[in-house]
């Protein structure tokens, strides 16, 4: 883990309120694992503002890719950062996804929850694990991000939107349930990897547990330090109050205690 001064290589609006931020971050890129995150000091926020955590979307050739949505003051101000600016990035942080997947890897993302799943897909495929399938859900078509990038990796993609603007109309658990049924019918092993809003994660975790499959759930919590020092980003688990930033953000589905 280092606090790396990173130059902004690209910062573009990708529609729907989402942006892609590409940083030159050789130290972090050479160490990051799928599911880990970075903690960004947002230039333009006053100097005493807290950092903001972001999942790592991709890391390749010294370049760190973040995919984020404007959801508050921090991300709104981050949106003003321009190519050539310098940003302090602490990372890589937290425990990511395990890559010893047996059978099919079902990646489930809600909205910008797909962010950590792209590097995961790449990492799994690099280990010849799979097949890797993506289930992406969102309110509308604009909330389904980077789908083509997944397809280019050779990932089979299943989509669902609340408004039916693309894919199945409804929750992402619709296509997921169908696939689980198919795999179980064929007695095939699978593991589930998920990131997204809490209700989706809870639903996915329940499916993993009831299918007796491994489920890996990446939790999104407000953080202060990002390194395990402050104990602000707590998730209840079977081991008590765990820190999302260090015991997580990825937890085994069976370890999570939902409130």
């Amino acid at each position, binding site marked *: 883990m280092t606090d790396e001064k990173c130059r902004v290589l690209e910062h573009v609006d990708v529609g729907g309120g989402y942006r892609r931020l590409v940083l030159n971050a050789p130290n972090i890129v050479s160490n990051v694992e799928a599911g880990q995150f970075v903690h960004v000091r947002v230039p333009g926020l006053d100097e005493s503002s807290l950092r903001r955590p972001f999942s790592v979307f991709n890391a390749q050739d010294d370049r760190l890719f973040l995919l984020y949505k404007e959801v508050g003051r921090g991300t709104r101000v981050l949106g003003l950062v321009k190519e050539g600016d310098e940003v302090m990035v602490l990372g890589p942080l937290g425990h990511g996804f395990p890559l010893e997947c047996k059978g099919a890897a079902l990646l489930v993302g809600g909205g910008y929850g797909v962010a950590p799943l792209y590097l995961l897909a790449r990492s799994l495929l690099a280990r010849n694990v799979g097949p890797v399938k993506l289930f992406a859900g969102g309110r509308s078509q604009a909330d389904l991000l980077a789908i083509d990038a997944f397809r280019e990796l050779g990932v089979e993609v299943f989509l669902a939107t609340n408004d039916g603007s693309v894919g199945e109309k409804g929750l992402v658990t619709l296509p997921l349930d169908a696939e689980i049924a198919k795999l179980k019918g064929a007695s095939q092993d699978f593991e589930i990897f998920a990131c997204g809003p809490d209700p989706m994660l809870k639903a996915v975790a329940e499916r993993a547990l009831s299918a007796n499959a491994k489920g890996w759930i990446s939790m999104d919590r407000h953080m202060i330090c990002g*390194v395990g020092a*402050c104990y602000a980003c707590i998730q209840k688990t079977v081991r008590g109050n765990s820190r999302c930033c260090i015991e997580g953000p990825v937890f085994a589905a069976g370890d999570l205690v939902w409130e």
Partner: protein
Amino acid sequence: MVDVSVNIGGLKMPTFLATASGTFGYGFEYVGAVDYSKLGAVTAKGIRMEMWPGNPMPRHAEVPGGLVNAIGLQGTGVEHFLDITVPWYRSCVPSVPLIANIWGDSIESYARVAEKMGSAVDALEMNVSCPNVKAGGHTFGQDPNVLFEVVSAVRKATKLPLFVKLAPNVPSITPYVKACEDGGADALSLINTIPAMVIDIEKRRPVLANISGGLSGRCVHPVAVKMVYEAKKVTCLPILAMGGVYDAKDAIELMLAGATAVAVGTSIFTDPGVISSVYDGVVDYCERHGFAAVRDLTGALENSFI
């Protein structure tokens, strides 16, 4: 070469700069992001006898110029601390003294955890801003008589340098300082957070699950300077000052007001590099102003203000 070492209540700190309890975990979490050679002490997160789960979520709210937190002293208890945490800290950070911050819910429990610490750490800091279950939620630190009692009890239980961390929300710090002196404290830590509360107006409920919390961060700095200055006027106890230290100027103000050493806290969350920048800036200030040792900054206001 400016001498950066200080001796504060018997604790020899290789530098004048510490970390404040609760902001730096157990000292090893920031390895890789912090230059530990610039630290004179690490104050660990609060520890009591038994495991403690802390408060429900949410535990913090960012406010303009500061942070309101109610973590609630989550911790694994003193045995785990001594068996696992301290050895791990010593292996990761071999050369920086460790101050254990201790708390309890009764005078006896303070004394027990202090005794249990033995000489495994280099100093103790008492958090007296937690509720006394026997006194209906009043904190130990809010009544000088109770404060005297709890400090005395801990004093009898330990030979380590003993720091007492005082709350800033008092009309006058004097009776609290006297209680610490009379109880046998070796040093004061000033200041703890300021009681504060944030309300979510759309949900019409407090943001923090604990309803209220403690304000820290840049904005509390002038309050800390005032408290250190007032304490210094009435005591010879050395002061470890913390509260809104974001740059060297902030640290120097606290030392000129009377502090022997200074801790960074909430600022670390935004910038772990604050440890280096404060250290470097204080050394540079000493060089520019002809101070041979950082310790000479303590209380070094112009004569008319001492």
